């Protein structure tokens, strides 16, 4: 056990990289989600089609294959990204594709009456989307966004395969150096679990913040507890 403590700085380094992947990946994923999700809502088929292709390709293929493709195959086409940047881009494209469907679904499920009220008031299509439909869809987007966020976080461990020195990579390295297999993997599990838990707390805070009809505290706590098994923070 003491050897692990000796190696703690290495794991800390890895955790910092993992958290950087998480933050940059999820921010980029959010941009991609709105870009692709809104594009897929377009009235024009030619605008919708590229978004649909992007979403289905990235949802329908393995992320580890996507990583290998971007890291090992793209350089042959003249595009070379460093490992960390490749990791951020692939995580964002992959999870962004899932989140794009969340964006599209949440906006599309708004009642037709909202659009009709906008037409009656003369609020045009762009403002209708920006000021009316998107803001009122946010509460419906947040719980599934939480799932995607935790998913993205857990998938950061895959970038170890393209030589990014993340938490998993460092854990594997420390294990090679110390042979403390059980302790090392237990430590990794706990760290991933604790960060996931913090992400759930963050998302629940956001859900409360953006709730259209803020409920009383007691029901909030109840719904928070109820939301836990579904979230599967430790899955």
């Amino acid at each position, binding site marked *: 056990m003491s050897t692990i403590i000796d190696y703690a700085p290495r794991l800390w380094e890895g955790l910092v990289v993992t958290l950087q992947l998480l933050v940059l990946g999820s921010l980029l994923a959010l941009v991609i989600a709105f870009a692709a999700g809104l594009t897929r809502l377009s009235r024009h088929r030619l605008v919708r089609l590229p978004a649909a292709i992007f979403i289905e390709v990235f949802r329908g293929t393995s992320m580890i294959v996507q990583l290998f493709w971007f890291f090992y195959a793209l350089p042959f086409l003249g595009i070379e990204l460093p490992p960390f940047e490749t990791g951020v881009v692939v995580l964002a494209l992959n999870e962004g594709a899932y989140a794009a469907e969340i964006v599209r679904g949440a906006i599309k499920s708004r*009642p037709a*009456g*909202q659009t*009709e*009220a906008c*037409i*009656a*008031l*003369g*609020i*045009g299509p762009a*403002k209708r989307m920006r*000021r*009316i439909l998107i*803001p*009122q869809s*946010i509460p419906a987007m947040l719980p599934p966004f939480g799932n995607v966020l935790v998913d993205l976080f857990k998938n950061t461990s895959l970038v170890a395969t393209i030589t990014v020195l993340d938490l998993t990579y460092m854990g594997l390295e420390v294990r090679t150096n110390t042979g403390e297999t059980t302790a090392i993997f237990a430590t990794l599990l706990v760290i991933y679990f604790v960060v996931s838990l913090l992400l759930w707390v963050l998302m629940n805070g956001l859900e409360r913040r953006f709730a*259209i*009809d803020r409920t009383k505290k007691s029901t909030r706590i109840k719904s928070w507890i109820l939301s836990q098994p579904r979230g599967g923070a430790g899955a």
Partner: protein
Amino acid sequence: MISFDDVDKSWGPNHVLKKLNFHVKPAEKVSIIGPSGSGKTTILRILMTLENPDEGIVTVDGDELWNVERGRRIRRETTQMKLTRRKIGMVFQQFNLFPHLSAIQNVMEAPIQVLGMSKNEAHERAKGLLDTVGLGEHLDHKPPKLSGGQQQRVAIARAMAMRPKVMLFDEVTSALDPELVGDVLDVIRDLATSTDMTMLLVTHEMRFAEEISDRVVMFDGGVAVEQGPPQKIFQDPDNERTRRFLKAVLEH
């Protein structure tokens, strides 16, 4: 102010408007009554450009609402059309308030975003309107915190904030609990008596229609089967279908 000339509209096999000719004078208050599915609501929705007619010409204040292109009626998105549509306001059966905005924000939104009004001016106008409809105490409440009747009164204030020349009321009390209907009707009654807005009401509130209308139109099967002053329609209708309909709705 409003004219429908030979307007036709079908939903598949369902012929909801049959060569409709219908004209409304400025400041006239017209109630449209009739059985469900008779095309009453479609008239309002065509005026608000939420539906397009299959045939015919619809004008508001002298301007056409639809262009004919390759045999289809296309909603005109010209500046002129936007200005014409701005003359019309509509209140919906289901209120359709913006749920993420407070009562006063609901009313301020269009004046700021569409008319380019300053926040202060829009706030002042919205507050005045919400006071008028009896919601001065609930400016900052979001729609889910308001009763149906309160929501509908906010919706009326929201439509009024654009100062339309024509107001369309589409069964605005049908979704309300019976005890909340009165407050909403009071607000509409005030508007009817204190403004020179042209008003078109689709309603099942027969007593109310009789009280505030200049003219009542009985609709059935896609045609106006009878129209006239409310006293005439409600006390002594000529048409057999009008008589049967009124008997059915007024009997209970």
